[in-house]
């Protein structure tokens, strides 16, 4: 499966020669082929971050511009597919059952318009902004909490370690989604609330604590740590300069894969109407609104889901790739 395309074997050997600079070895056809999924995943993810940052310039149309005479316009690519269907729905017939309906006068959204005539593509691009803000902030938050607590447990050990690990066990015992939902019953929702809830209550930090703690315990007896100790390094210095950097690889991999989970959580909560405020375009909310009219139009309920799946998939590919690159011990473990 991972064999390079034939005819490039020579290039592989050439690039592995030590005289070549490091980056050239990295971009060898073989490496690119082996890492193709990770590269595609990383590319897609960067594209979404780009869309999130530059949404107003990329999108063109205003995502909140209501235009009632343009409700449920078919995607404009339907105009290019006149052979798919020229079926005219009869009186009282379900319109959504018609897959494509060419309409040469339709110049609105490339991916159609929704129940208020808003441009679906533009809303998707603006949705990337909120998804990325929540995903990156919540992951960073749970990462910082996890690393701090993990270091504290490994550093002090004993009683604190016991207490924190029991808390972590308890946290695992209750589905985080249930607690987040219950909290949203009386905390007003909003972007910041969402980030705090997913980052803290979501329990992503527990995994990080376990990684930092486990790795620290196993690294503590290594020769290089003993050597640093013998040279008179303080505990603090050993912890931050010698042990923590060596726990970073699994943390980065875990957090990268965790981003997908956060995006699923955010879009899920928005789908349930408990996430971001209604005036912010978000993928989850687009899907809820689309479901009401699923008998009328299929495109508003297809594209947002496709985008969510694509982002989550890209984080999985990226995580796999980072794991193979950063932590060679785990290579091929799956």
């Amino acid at each position, binding site marked *: 499966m991972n064999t390079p395309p034939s005819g490039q074997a020579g290039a592989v050997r050439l690039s592995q020669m030590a005289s070549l600079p490091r980056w050239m070895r990295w971009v060898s056809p073989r490496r690119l082929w082996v890492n193709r999924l990770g590269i595609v995943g990383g590319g897609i993810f960067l594209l979404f971050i780009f869309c999130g940052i530059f949404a107003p310039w990329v999108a063109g149309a205003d995502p909140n511009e209501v235009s009632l005479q343009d409700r449920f316009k078919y995607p404009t690519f339907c105009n290019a597919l006149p052979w798919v269907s020229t079926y005219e729905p009869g009186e009282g017939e379900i319109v959504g059952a018609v897959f494509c309906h060419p309409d040469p006068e339709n110049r609105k959204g490339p991916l159609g318009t929704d129940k208020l005539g808003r441009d679906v593509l533009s809303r998707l691009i603006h949705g990337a902004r909120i998804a990325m803000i929540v995903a990156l902030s919540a992951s960073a938050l749970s990462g910082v909490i996890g690393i701090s607590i993990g270091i504290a447990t490994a550093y002090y050990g004993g009683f604190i370690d016991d207490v924190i690990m029991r808390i972590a066990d308890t946290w695992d015992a209750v589905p985080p989604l*249930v607690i987040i939902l219950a909290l949203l019953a009386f905390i007003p929702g909003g972007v910041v609330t969402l980030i705090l809830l997913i980052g803290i209550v979501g329990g992503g930090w527990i995994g990080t604590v376990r990684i930092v703690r486990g790795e620290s315990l196993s690294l503590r007896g290594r020769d290089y740590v003993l050597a640093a100790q013998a040279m008179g390094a303080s505990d603090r210095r050993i912890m931050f300069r010698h042990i923590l950097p060596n726990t970073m690889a699994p943390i980065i991999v875990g957090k990268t894969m965790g981003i997908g989970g956060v995006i699923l959580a955010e*879009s899920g909560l928005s789908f349930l109407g408990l996430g971001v405020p209604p005036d912010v375009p978000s993928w989850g909310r687009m899907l809820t609104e689309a479901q009401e009219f699923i008998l009328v139009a299929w495109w508003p309920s297809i594209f947002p*889901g496709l985008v969510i799946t694509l982002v989550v998939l890209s984080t999985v590919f990226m995580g796999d790739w980072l794991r193979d690159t950063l932590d060679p011990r785990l290579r091929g473990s799956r």
Partner: protein
Amino acid sequence: MTRYIVRRSLQAVVVIYLVVTLVFFLMRLGEGDPAQHLVDWEQDYEAALEQYRDLYVAMGLARPVVVQYGIHLYRTFTGQFGDSTIFNVPAWQLLGERIVKTSQMGGAALLLSVGIGIPLGIISALRRGSVVDTGATTFSVLGLTIPNFWQALLMILIFGVWLRWLPIYGADTWKHMIMPSIVASSALMATMSRFTRSGMLEVLRQDYIRTAASKGLGPSVIVVRHAMRNGLISVITLLGAAVPLFWSGVFFVEYVFAWPGVGLLFLNSINQQDLPVVFMLLLLISVATVFGYLLVDIIYALVDPRIRFR
């Protein structure tokens, strides 16, 4: 063994106690106190204030926090959750029919994920690298990345709108149950097949499998009698981790398909700020989860004699 079960049960009780305590403090975390949520502030302000004062005293909020906590513990463990503010009946009365509905759908989902996930995992382990294996692996990645609410919408669109085979919401006939249980099972099915595959691959490498083969036993005997017994142990551990997965599936599926179960009741109570029902369900789901873990741990210990009971 008995000691192990007793110990694990005690741990479970402690976790439930912590959840009850958490619920108590959560009630005070929101804006205002619980009485404030029950008062209709739209009416005449003086009357509302009067009503608020009465409720404040009647709910015992004027007492010291420690006493309130004691009362909360007593009420929770004797099952007095208070009246639903929306339906005006005791909260537990809302459960009956809804638990039946959720169990029907959840049970069907569980059967589907075990019945399809495990055989799929076994086949893809036996035919490693084949089309079936690649398909199953792709399927299991997609099963975990496609959000289940979108999966539900896709199914509604395909089977409800375009093909018109199945009803798109409600819970009247057996036909209504097909799409919800398939969607609720998908994430679990994906993890099942993945764990079964890796468990089986692990076992098939072992020496005793080669011994069995060299004795001249047929492949089906080896797989069923020798490999599966050990290969499926890891799947049992998975069942424990699957409990939260199951609940998140239940919420979204019941919401999308308007399936009148516990999950939908929970979501509606949250949207309508029906706090007694929210807290009762929070506790119920936590208890169900904790005992789910407990059950899995005990089964695991029974099945795998290598587990030492510390």
